[in-house]
């Protein structure tokens, strides 16, 4: 591993509790994120994403292993790490009693910017995220989308070389989400390395050059999205049938390939011999007396990669995230 890479972890561990109550939240994570890369970090709730990010942003001490951010050890050189990172955490609140401009100026003070730059830097960032008109309003009056944009602006006050974005678009309306994507691309184009955690697989597909999927504290897949999709291989056929016919349908579908995780009320199968098998599937289901209510054929997607790696499908993962409701529930198959 290159110690000069913006983010490097070596066997990173974080355990909570002890004895019978021991929880291995992160259990030996190895990552190397390259300079100028947008890296997607995916996983179901409780998989270890946030714990990993909290360690990398110096909020939490690792139990074992090592990690370097911007070339600095997250334990021994925590303050150097803090000087080089920007962080927009999903659960990092903003003081509702302060105005957007006051918060940015406080952030400028805390990052040691020269006094002469406080006002100009705050104004520049407020304009950049479209909050100039709301600059002197208390944050308590901001909408959720405005808070996320302010959160991003706060993380950029010192032009960090490494940016951590924890589910930055959750709860945003479609237009705000697209604008934020555009901003992330622009930051990345300017040379900022971005570690992005998200529950929207399409978001990772759109923005990330490489992704890692973490489950039960362990990295279960890592690579470029296209390569990961190719690794899944065959397309997935989703079939909806009556509940009392599911056993029969499962037996029939099993003749065409491996059954795959799917949403409730739907059965999924990876078609070993490709899309040409669809007609045979329908015919054999018909011969078995199974009435097909709905049929969908999906080319390999990150959703399939995620499902194959974790055994879960994220709720609404197949949908365009623009229409998502921010739910992060998962189906356990």
């Amino acid at each position, binding site marked *: 591993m290159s110690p*000069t*890479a*913006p983010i490097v972890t070596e066997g990173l561990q974080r355990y909570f509790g002890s004895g019978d109550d021991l929880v291995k939240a992160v259990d030996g994570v190895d990552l190397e994120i390259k*300079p*100028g890369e947008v890296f997607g970090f995916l996983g179901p709730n409780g998989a270890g994403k946030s714990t990993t990010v909290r360690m990398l*942003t*110096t*909020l*939490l*001490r690792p139990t074992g292993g090592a990690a370097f951010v*911007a*070339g*600095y050890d997250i334990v021994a050189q925590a*303050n*150097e790490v*803090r*000087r*080089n*990172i920007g*962080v927009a*955490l999903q*659960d*990092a*609140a*903003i*003081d509702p*009693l*302060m105005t957007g401009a*006051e918060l940015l100026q*406080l*952030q400028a*003070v*805390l*990052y*040691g*910017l*020269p006094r002469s730059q406080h006002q100009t830097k705050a104004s520049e960032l407020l*304009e*950049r*995220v*479209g909050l100039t008109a709301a600059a002197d309003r*208390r944050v308590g009056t901001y909408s959720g989308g405005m808070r996320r*944009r302010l959160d991003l602006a*706060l993380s950029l006050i*010192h*032009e*960090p*070389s490494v940016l951590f974005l924890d589910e930055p678009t959750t709860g945003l309306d479609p237009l705000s989400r697209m*604008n*934020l994507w*555009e*901003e992330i691309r*622009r*930051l*990345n*184009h*300017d*040379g900022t*390395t971005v570690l992005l955690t998200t529950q929207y697989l399409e978001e990772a597909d759109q923005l990330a050059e490489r992704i890692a999927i973490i489950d039960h504290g362990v990295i279960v897949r890592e690579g470029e999205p296209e390569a990961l999709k190719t690794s899944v291989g065959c397309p997935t056929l989703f079939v909806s049938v009556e509940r009392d016919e599911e056993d029969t349908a499962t037996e029939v579908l099993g003749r065409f390939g491996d059954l795959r995780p799917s949403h409730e009320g739907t059965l999924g199968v990876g078609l070993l011999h490709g899309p040409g098998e669809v007609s045979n599937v329908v015919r054999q289901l018909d011969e078995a007396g199974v009435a097909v209510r709905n049929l969908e054929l999906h080319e390999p997607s990150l959703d399939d990669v995620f499902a194959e790696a974790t055994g879960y499908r994220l709720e609404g993962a197949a949908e365009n995230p623009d229409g998502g409701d921010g739910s992060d529930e998962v189906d356990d198959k």
Partner: protein
Amino acid sequence: MSIDSTTRTTKSGSGHKPRSVAFTALWPSSVGLGMRNVRNIRRLPSAFLPSLLMPIIQAVAFSGTFFAVTQIPGFPTDRSINWYLPLGVILGCGFAGIGVGFTTVRDIESGFYDRLRMTPVPRLALITGPTLGALIRALVVTTTVFLVGLLIGARLTDGMLGLLMLYVASLGVATLGTFWGLALAYRFRDMRGAAIMQLTFFLALFLSDAQTPLSVMEGWLHGVARVNPFTNILRLGRQGFLGDVTWANTWGGLVAIAAICALTLWFAVASLNRLRD
């Protein structure tokens, strides 16, 4: 979103190059954090008013209810308000200090404190910043209660030096109250800490000669009050209302403030470090 950023390094030419910001000094970051604390007095007066009104009400109520305390042989003043006003001031300033602990618990629970912890300020600034805010609150409390006390009959017996001693004691108690409040906020990270802050402060203050002089106390309460450092702090703050300011009545309070501040600061720093665990 209107975007007009200046390109620093294009992606095609990027390599990892830390763009380290300047060293963040203790003083400016402490002032920044302290001003946030002060600003919230105006924005959320309901969180500050109790620490201002309580000592006024207490000074007025105690001096009225216990006016007969001045009849005790050897009682050092003939004005009960002169005895109870410094107690009210110190109580209010203590609460101005531990009020910072309440605010910090709220910041920890909301997640705002994570944002502060991720900044490169010296860790000590996370303690000294709110302490500056508490000291400004304590100045407001001391001045207001003193002025109200003058209106209802309190009199300085050693001029401005006596008033200075009151400020030294009240600011000292605000400082140790802040350190104690922050330590418990970091340790418990929720409102359990707030309950302990109040309880322990009340106990420490009222198991001293807060209400009556040591000379009229008996039994275990006398023993506890005699060794309670808050007795010395009260003596420091009260002396300008009971007679002349003397070194004998001063040094014990200064030592008590310094010792408790050192202990509570150590506890706060250790507890802050444990937030990463």
